[in-house]
Every structure is written in C-alpha cells, then in structure tokens.
C-alpha cells in the first residue's frame, strides 16, 4: 500500500535532484529547470500532506498557487536569460560576473 512516506521520498528525491541541478549547471536554462524541480517537489509535499492529514483543500490550493508562481517565474526567468544573452552573447553563468566587487 502506498503511504505518505512514499510520496515524501519521491518529493525528497525530486528536491535533491533540483538542488543538484541548480548548483552544478553552468547553463542559466539548466538552473531554471532545477528551480522547477524544486517547486514541484514542494507541490508533491503539499498534495501528499493534504491527502493524509484530512484537511479540506488547503494543500491543493497552495499547489495551484505554486504552479501559477512557477509559470510567472519561468516567464520572467526566461526573459532575463534572453536579456543576458543579448548583452553577453552567452548564458554560461560562470562567464557573467559583471557584479564582481
């Protein structure tokens, strides 16, 4: 029988993969993808806890909010990446260090 733990394990795996992706990728798009994984790991948590805590729809509503937020984040993120590409001709984050102190 599938219980809460199973969902949490999936969520942890997804979250770790996301963090790993964010930390290791040098491509800005890869980092955005990693952030999506992290957000979806959070979503799984919301839904799983909602399902097993017997709450009404709180977790699901939050998940919907996260999805909308993720969509907005992707839009802005991609626009920024595009802007970066226009001015630096690259989206390799190692190569972009104009903010160095």
């Amino acid at each position: 029988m599938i219980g809460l733990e199973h969902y949490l394990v999936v969520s942890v795996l997804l979250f770790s993969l996301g963090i790993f992706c964010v930390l290791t990728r040098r491509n800005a798009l890869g980092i955005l993808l990693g952030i999506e994984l992290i957000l979806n790991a959070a979503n799984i948590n919301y839904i799983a806890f909602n399902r097993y805590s017997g709450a009404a729809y709180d977790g699901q509503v939050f998940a919907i909010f996260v999805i909308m937020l993720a969509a907005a984040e992707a839009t802005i993120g991609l626009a920024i990446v595009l802007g970066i590409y226009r001015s630096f001709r690259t989206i390799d984050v190692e190569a972009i260090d104009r903010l160095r102190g």
Partner: protein
Amino acid sequence: MTEVAEITVVSYLRWIPLLPLASAALNGVLGASIHKRFGERAISALACAPVTISFILACVALAELAGLPEHDRFLLDHVAPWIAIGSLRVDIAFAADPLTAVMMLVVTGVGGIIHYYAIGYMHGDRSYWRFFAFFNLFMFAMLTLVMGDSLLLMFVGWEGVGLCSYALIGFWYQDIEKARAGSKAFIVNRIGDFGFLLGIFLLFWTLDAAGHGTVVFREIEANVGLLEGRFFWGFPVAVLVGLFLFLGAVGKSAQIPLHVWLPDAMAGPTPVSALIHAATMVTAGVYMIGRMHFLYSAAPAALTVVAVVGATTALVAATIGVAQNDIKKVLAYSTVSQLGYMCLAMGVGAYVWGIFHLFTHAFFKGCLFLGSGSVIHGMGGEQDMRNMGGLRRHMPRTFWTFLISTLAIAGAPFTAGFFSKDGILAEAYGRGGLGLWLAGALGAGLTAFYMFRQVFMVFFGECRAGEHTRHHLHESPAVMTVPLVILAAGALLVGWLGLPPFLGFLGPNLFEAWLEPVFGHPHAGLSHETEMVLTAISLSMAGAGVYLAYRMYYTGRTSPETFSEFAGGIPYRAVYNKYWFDEVYDAVFVRATMLLAKAGALCDRYIIDGIVDGSATLTALWSRVTGIFDLGFIDGAVNTISDSVLDWGSRLRKVQTGSINAYLYAIVAGVVGITILRMIWFAGV
C-alpha cells in the same frame, strides 16, 4: 449512449495509446545513442512496431464491439483514479464505442501507414530519432483525445496533439521561418483551447449546481436535460457551452477566423502535414462535436453557428486555394475547406455524414500529401508548382495515386469523396437550407478546379525545372510508394461503406448502421429524386471545374489572365493574398501588443523614472542645506568612522564574486545551516 444497457469491461484498450507513449519515451530519452549505436533501422522499428500493434488492438476492439448487441456496444478500460476533489471525480479511463472505433482505426491505420512512409522520407535527417519520438508522442496524444472517457482526459490529448504539432512544424527549427510557423500554430490554437476550457468549466459548474457534477461523457449525456432552462448571464447554458467548445474546434480544426495557422504549418516535414495537419489532428474538432452531439442537439443556436462557420470556411478556403502556387499550400487550403464541409455536416445535425467525410478525407488527403511529399522528394526540395510539370513520365506511381485521390476529393462518381461530400450537401440542403447548400456546391466546383489545376501543373505538360533537378528526377523508393498505393485504394473504395439512400438498391449504408447506436437515426428525409438532382448539380459543377482547369492549364486555350484581370484584378489579388487575414491580424493584434509594450516602456521611462528622479533631486537639495551644517560640526567624527567602513568594505568586497554559482552555494549553505540550527536549538518544538 444513454441507451447503453451494459458496459463491457476490458483491459487491453489502455495499450492502444500507451504503447506509442512508451516508444516515444524510449526514442525521446535514448534516441541519440540508439541512433549512434544501431542506426536508423532501430529507431524506425521502435517507432513503427507499437503503432502497428495499436492498430491490431484497435481491430480487436472493433471486432469485439461488432460482436456485442447493438445497444451494448461500449468497452471501458478503467486504469486508475485521477482527480478527486469536492464533487469532481475523474478517472483515467479509456472507452470505445462505435464512433471511437472509427476514429481509432483512422488514427492507427492511416497513422501507421504514414509512419512507414516517414521511414523513407526522413531518411538521413540529423534528428531522425527526434522526429519519431514526437511522431509517437502525437499518436499517444491523439489516441487519448479519441479514447478518453471524460472531457478532461480529452483535453489532455487535445493539448498533447497541439504540443506535438508545434514541435513538428518547427522540426527544422534552425530555419527561423519554420520555428515561427510552429509558434504561430501554438498561439492561435491557444485561443481555441481557452474557449474549450471555459466550456468544460461552465458545463461542470452548471451540472454541479444541478446536483450532478461530472465531466464523463456518458454521464453528461444522461444528465444533459439538466441544462435546460439554465441561464448564464442571460444566455442558455447549453448554447454557451456549445459555442465555447466550438471555439476550441475552430482553433484545432482551422475554421475561419482561426484558420491562419494551418497553411503555415506546412513548414513541417511532409509526413507531419499528412498525419497531423490533414488526416487526424485537425479533425479533432469535428470529432469533439460528434462526441458531444447530444449537447449540440439540445442547443440548436450553437449548431447554426457551427453550420454557418463551416459553410463559410468551405467556400472561402476553396477560393484561396485557387490562386496558390506552392504544392503544399494548395493542399493546406483544400484541407481547411474540407474541414469546413465536415463542420457544415455537424452543424446541420448530419453527424454521420460529418464523421464519414472525416473518414474518407483521411484516405484521400493523406494520399495527396504523401504524393506531394514524393514529388518534393523527387524534385530535390522544390515546392513551387510553376517549376514543375511533366512529372507523369518520371514518377508514374506517384502520378496515378495522386490522380485517384484528386478524383476522390473532386467528387468523381463512385470514389470516396463522391459519397461523403454529396451526402453532406444533400443533408445541408434538406436541413440547413439553400444558402448552406449553395456555398457547399460552389466550393465543390472550386475544389475540382484547383485540384486539377494542381495535377495539370505538376504532372502534365513540359518539365519547367532546371537542368540539375531534371537530371535527378526519380520515382521514390517502395517504402514511400506502397503507402501511396494503399491510401489510394482506400480513396477509391471506402466510399462504398456509406451508400446514399438513392443508391439503396446497391446495398445498405453500413457506415450509418454502424454509428446508429451513437447518433440515432436522424435523416433529412429528401426524396430520392431531389437527392439525384442535387448530386447531378454538384457533379456538373465539379465537371465544369475540371474542364476549366483543363482549358487553362493543359491545352492553354483559356488564358488564366482572363480571370486574374477580371474586375481590375481585385478579386484575384484578394484570393492570392488570402484575403489579407495575416496582414489584418498582424496590424490589429501583433502591432497592438507591441504598442502596448512600448507605451508601458515609455510610462516607465518618463512617469515612474520622473517621480524617482524628482524625489532624488529634492533629496539632493535638502542634503545640500544640511551639508553646510555637517561640514562644520560632524565631519570630524564621521571621517574616522568612514575610514574604518572603507577598510572593511575593501575586505568584504571579495565576497561579492559576481559568480551566480557562488551565490547559489551560499543560499543553499544558509538554508542547510538554519535548518541544522533549528534542529539543535528547538528540537521537539
């Protein structure tokens, strides 16, 4: 389906969509390495085998359905629960009734043939595996759309086919024009999908308020009576839902005014045009109306809109097709026009004939597209018909199959198109009225004209290609011509499944009898004599079209200029430029959006920046005043502090590496650190 007394539960239906999905996943994830290690053959075997098995399973389902008593023909495969929230219960379940069976056979059958054809057409492409991964994903999405048990599952497939269509139109994305065509298809379709979603929402909401919230088709059908007498903002709900869903169909099935994406979609590889933009995906809207026919029958006003839009599209697209010179553009407008006929049939309530035309159209239009692909292949990529001609001698098999399908689409007696199109026209006359019939009949004449214009320009006369191309002209390999022959045979023969009443002495209308459990038995009730007269009129219109094409493009006795210069050339320029739909949309929507963005930027620059600058100036003024006080009294103390700040600053600036990765590491380390601290200090809280 309300009459379905008993549902037969089976467990093999799920494999029809899931097998293509599995191979799409395999080719999509591992395709590059499979290609490198085992070559193209492994990729194409992986892609074609599951589709073939799906086709066999679809035949099994058809046989099982046929074996059941007429009103128990309903197979259900319940896979898993999906959504359970409030009163909304949706399961992942695949169903098959006679209507689904027809669609399954078209999708897996014609789709399978085009898969095999693509083996030859895509040979040598750099992204061979990517093509087949998306092609199989498309099969999965289309089969989900067709077999899904609920509106929501259908919507999943609906979006899925849109995604695959986008990815395959822009398959050669290095060419910016082709990538743009993909985006255009996606964006235009989104307008329709938005309507589709609104329709689902409104339907569920209303049914839920009446105590039977559901999105499962057979439950909607059982409860459709609850919509009666319900209003939303003063409009009957059934009509509104019908119109919203139809907006989705207008987008997906390329009806006016959202047809603009389909001609551009021809930028994709030709097998894509044949499978997605002719035989299957674009018919999804028509299928959806058939699936929801009980709703539309309860909303005559919505049906009228469907019929008028369909008839307008059938006629207008046909006039545009007359003046195109790109071999695939002609076929694209012809597809738009034929989809118009299907919508017209649905709109007058002749669901059987709409689905029948969908069925026959899949064969002859699939064959025409594959034939044009064979021509393009042989001509080394040339698509302009003005540079073709005389290909009859070089590509005999392509020529004959193309000719047969052209006869079918033009409605030559006893070919597939003859039965289905004349069926539609008769029903349009009997139930819709003279105007709808006239639009359809005029469209039929134009269809015959532009299709034969194409045949004469491509296959007859002298070859107008360059020396180099002419030298390389060759018939396509068997893997491409055998599918052509199969589809042409279908174009010739499948019409006999749906004999019209006035040919009743030749046998019964098998197609209508098969769909009777779904659609019931509505009829226009025309006398045989009227039907024969109507058929004679549309046949003579088609004949006139063929004769005119023959005079203009074969013997050359009538110059095309007679028409292109008619009335100062204005009508010709209008159709040549596709009635400026694209230009108008560009001016109204695209430019308006750009203007809005520009206005936003100006507002930002002058108003927001002005406020910020203004407050900065004020602050600067005030600080100058206080500065006088400062200079005298406070500086001494401050200078000491500032020196030490400067000192610290130069040390701390090393932390600001500017490297995004370093910042990310710092963030993660911070989160981990805080978590650990929390665990130590507040353990058990």
